[in-house]
Structures are given as structure tokens and as C-alpha cells.
């Protein structure tokens, strides 16, 4: 017989903490990055078709929306890299103490912002 009793509330009521936030962001940025890489590949293959396509995308990336997307992707890649390193350390069996997970989680969050700023500055001044 099917159990018709109600389901108790779950994600609606459960409190977020640093590790769960980093974990869900890791998944979201992972999906964003896959889409981004696909788009970059399509962009690269467009170049074969001629320079009008290039200038169109160049124009787009220099617009406000384009810049926003570019910086956003710099953040999502930074986040993914740092979070992946955190996961690799955990896969080796280290860093499971509650205090440590909090610290490494914060390092990932603030580190990703720092890396994004760094990427932006390097891109603006040296390339």
C-alpha cells in the first residue's frame, strides 16, 4: 500500500552552512563551466568562417553584458578550481574536522573572488 502520509519539510527548513553552500556552488559552477567551454568551442569554430563573425563576438564581449559574462566566468572557473582542490584533499581523507571544513570553505569563497580580481587585472594590464 502506498504511504499517503505527508513528507516532512526538508530543504525549505534546513539551515545552510559554509560546506553545504560550497558544495552546491561547486555543482552550479560546474554546469556553468561546461556550457561556457562549449560556447568557447563554438566561438572558436566560427573563426574559420571569416572575420565578420570574429568582430561580432568581439563587439559582444566588449559590451556591458559581455564583460559581465566574462568576469562571471572568471569567477566560476576560479571557484571550481579551488573547490576541486578542496575535494581532492578530502578524497585523500584529510580536512573533515568541522572547524577545518569551515576554514577551507571560506578559503574557497574568498579565494575565488581574489582569483577573479587577479584574472581581471592581468587581463586588463598585460594582455
Amino acid at each position: 500500500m502506498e504511504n499517503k502520509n505527508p513528507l516532512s519539510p526538508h530543504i525549505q527548513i534546513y539551515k545552510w552552512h559554509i560546506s553545504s553552500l560550497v558544495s552546491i556552488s561547486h555543482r552550479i559552477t560546474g554546469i556553468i563551466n561546461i556550457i561556457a567551454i562549449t560556447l568557447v568551442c563554438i566561438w572558436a569554430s566560427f573563426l574559420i568562417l571569416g572575420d565578420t563573425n570574429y568582430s561580432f563576438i568581439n563587439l559582444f564581449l566588449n559590451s556591458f553584458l559581455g564583460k559581465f559574462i566574462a568576469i562571471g566566468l572568471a569567477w566560476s572557473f576560479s571557484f571550481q578550481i579551488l573547490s576541486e582542490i578542496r575535494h581532492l584533499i578530502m578524497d585523500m581523507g584529510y580536512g573533515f574536522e568541522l572547524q577545518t571544513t569551515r576554514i577551507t570553505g571560506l578559503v574557497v569563497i574568498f579565494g575565488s573572488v581574489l582569483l577573479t580580481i587577479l584574472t581581471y587585472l592581468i587581463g586588463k594590464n598585460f594582455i
Partner: protein
Amino acid sequence: MVQINLPENSQVKKGKYFKDKTGSTNLRKVNVYRWDPSTGENPRIDTYEVDMDNCPSKVLDILNKIKNEIDPTVAYRRSCAHGVCGSCAMNMGGKNGLACTTSHSEIDGDIDIYPLPHLKVKRDLIGDLDGLYKQYQSIEPWLKNNTKSKTAEIFQSKEDRAKLDGAYECIMCACCSTSCPSYWWNGDKYLGPAVLLQAYRWIIDSRDDERKARLKKVADELKLYRCHTILNCTSACPKGLNPAKAIAEIKKMLATANV
């Protein structure tokens, strides 16, 4: 399957409001999840004003006070009242824990009390843990030893015994498993932190002869590898254990072919 919203019959409605009758100035609002199986209505949140001047320090004391003095119809499990039996596991202030060891002073604002998340509710704060117990049974949580002698003692060195620390203390209160989003979405297949911690406890027991078979049994995409180190389990455990680390150790044993 990931289901963010609650089904139609589980949507929580606003319930009754119990105004304070003691005239106390030190009041706290306590919101309690209620569901009565006999009415066929949706679950509701009842709000109680509780006089904190005459209430001991734990959340369970508040519930007892409500049941004894305000509304005797509230149903919840409780037994030992000092964090040993695991009966009063519930969700308080958005976090799972034992009502008898959680101080209400840890919770800011109104005190929200729900049953353990993502379970079929039997009544009020009582969730149905049958699925979890079946999974616990599936890992065969007993010693399997091939020695013929039925009377000889099986020796264990102090070092080997120390490996069980942090695993044998588990009281199976289900705070960890029901805090785990992976267990919410895949609870029918994923074993969940509580059961995996117990699986680990028997895998590393030096007296057990079925280590390989036990490892082979949990080495499954859904049973084990649905753990994505969200760490809700470790932060929820009222006994301060670390199920996430135990799961990582099982994964490590399998990855290093140390079977």
C-alpha cells in the same frame, strides 16, 4: 529524483495560536509542526507562547512543558533525556539534533521545531524511519567470524580497538542521514551517512573475517558514491562523530584497492 517542493498533501499551513496564560514577562514563541493522521488535513504549524522563567535549558524541556501544561495532544518520541537513546532526534532551528541535548539558548528568535527532514510523518514530530532500519539490516551489522570454536575469546589489540573509536558510539538517531540532501533525493538507494558509518565500523573491525565481502557490498555507485561531502551529517551529529570522514575512508579503501 530531486524534488525541491513539497507534495500537495505536505504543504504546511498556519495552525492554532496558544496565548500565554501564566502572565509571565519572559516569553518565547515556539512553532511546532503538527499533523494528525485521523483528520486527513494538511500539516500545520501551531505556535505556543512559553514561559521561559519556569523552563529548564533544553528544547525537550520546552516540549515537555507544552505537553504537560499547554497542549497534551503534541506527539513526539523521547526516552532517556540525556543523549543516549536517540529517540528525540528532530529538526530545531533548522538543524537536526537531539532535543534533550540542544539548548534553546542556542537558537535565535522563535524556536521552530520540525520532524526529521524528508521522512513520511506518522504524527506531529514522529517520522517514519523504517527505510533506514531496513538499510541498516542490509549491511549485516554483526560480527562475522569464521573460527570454529564457540567458546574461545577473539583477541583484539589496543591499536585495533582504537580504530573503532568514533564509529561504535553511534546511537542511530538518524540526525545525520536525514540532514543529507543526497539522502533526501536518493534515500531509496543511497545508504546514507548513519548506515555507512556502521558499515565502516564493521569493515575496520579486526575481529571480522568478512572485510572483503563487506567492502564489495557497499562499493556501488548509488549505495556509497552519492556522498558529495556536503558535510551536513558531520555538523548535525549530536555525538560529535564524523560520518563524512568514515565514508571518505571507505572510498579510499576501495580506490587504493586495499580490499
